[in-house]
């Protein structure tokens, strides 16, 4: 079964084509590491999958529904470049707000469980702006996984995380993947990503130049895939 299906997706910024006919299918329950150099189009593509941006051409379906459909967005967890939590709300208030927006049956219980999962129960009433960077990142992870999404879209999830936050994120991602959640993550931190990825796609100047299962070569040598494709062009 296909969780994310992008067919001939184009996106322009002015006259510049940031995505040039991207066609990509992500199997349900898989973990896709979306690799590529800066400016390759990873974030643009993830934003289209998340329904944050419209494709100029092409079709994107998430779990069988168009990406902007409420049904699709209800099943998605999104963690972008920013942490997506409000500095002037407490950790608990942030999660309660998103719990209500996601129409969870018991937002308070879900918020408490999420805070416990990321180790922030002790500071649940502290304002997000008073948190350290690592704690803020963990709160962002709790927010993204609050509704136990069927699919998570992560843009550079390991960037500037401390060791503890990396461990928390990897644990949650591994548990989610094992529970059947589909994961799509763009990343430059190939080593961390390869520990979780079942599949790998490489974007090069707005085009998918490689898509396939993760191989032992990729795990042993993080630069291997780039040497095969990216640096040749």
């Amino acid at each position, binding site marked *: 079964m296909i969780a994310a299906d992008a067919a001939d997706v184009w996106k322009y910024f002015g006259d510049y084509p940031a995505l040039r006919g991207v066609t990509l299918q992500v199997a349900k329950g898989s973990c896709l590491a979306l690799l590529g150099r800066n400016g390759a189009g990873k974030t643009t593509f993830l934003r289209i999958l998340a*329904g*944050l941006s*419209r494709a100029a051409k092409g079709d994107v379906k998430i779990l069988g529904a168009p990406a902007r459909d409420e049904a699709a967005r209800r099943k998605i967890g999104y963690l972008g470049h*920013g942490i*997506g939590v409000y500095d002037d*709300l407490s950790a608990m208030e942030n999660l309660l707000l998103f719990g209500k*927006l*996601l129409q969870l049956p018991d937002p308070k219980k879900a918020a408490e469980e999420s805070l416990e999962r990321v180790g922030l129960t002790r500071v649940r009433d502290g304002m997000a702006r008073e948190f350290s960077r690592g704690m803020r990142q963990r709160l962002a992870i709790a927010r993204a996984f609050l509704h136990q999404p069927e699919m998570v879209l992560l843009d550079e999830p390991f960037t500037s995380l401390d060791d503890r936050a990396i461990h928390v994120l990897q644990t949650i991602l591994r548990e989610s993947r094992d529970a059947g959640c589909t994961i799509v993550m763009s990343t430059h931190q190939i080593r961390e990503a390869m520990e979780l990825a079942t599949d790998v796609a490489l974007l090069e100047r707005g085009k998918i130049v490689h898509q396939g299962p993760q191989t032992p070569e990729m795990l042993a040598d993080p630069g291997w895939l780039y040497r095969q494709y990216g640096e040749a062009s």
Partner: protein
Amino acid sequence: MNYGLSAAWSIAWKDLRTELRTKESLNAAVSFSLVVLVLFSFAFDLGREELRSIAGGLLWMVFLFASALIVNRGFSRELPNDCLDVLVASPVPGWSIFLGKAIAGFVLIMMVELISLPVFGIFYNIHWDGAFWMIVFVAAIATWGIAVVGSVFSAVTVNVRLRELMLPVILYPILIPLLLGAMQLTGALLNRESIFGDNNAWLRLLIAFDLIYTSLALFLIDFILVV
């Protein structure tokens, strides 16, 4: 529909809660209104008749400039930490996000107006004679229009570098009909005239403005938020 309305209320509640904690735009808007009202009262030595003819205009110019400070923060409040992305990626419909912002803007602008009106009364020697609550009624109708149009253009300019400058430049010309209506009705009330008699057309103008721009905004907001 119910989900959309409850989501709008959650967003409005979040905006009001964060604003009342930080008071970023509220302090600025209230201070601005009070300072301008007080300075004008010292700058012009107005007789009763002159005051009656300009009071509505003076009051609404102050309210309009103060409102720009409030609505400017509407969507830009979502910029730190890319919170707007999370809202747009969530199942919350675009119109709910907009409605939440408009409700929060409306409440905050009304707070500024309710603080400013008594000060206006004191410094300009206004005898309300029962007109106070009717002016609040007119202000509520006009303020909804300002909050709606302001929220739409706050969304349009949210990623513009000079949005503090751009928003008023776009906002004020569109609000001219609303401003005319609010000025006329406020002036009439201060002159002890009814707003339902000869001035009924101005009241209908305000209500029509609110209905048209609210409908347009609810319909168009998705095209503004997702590009």
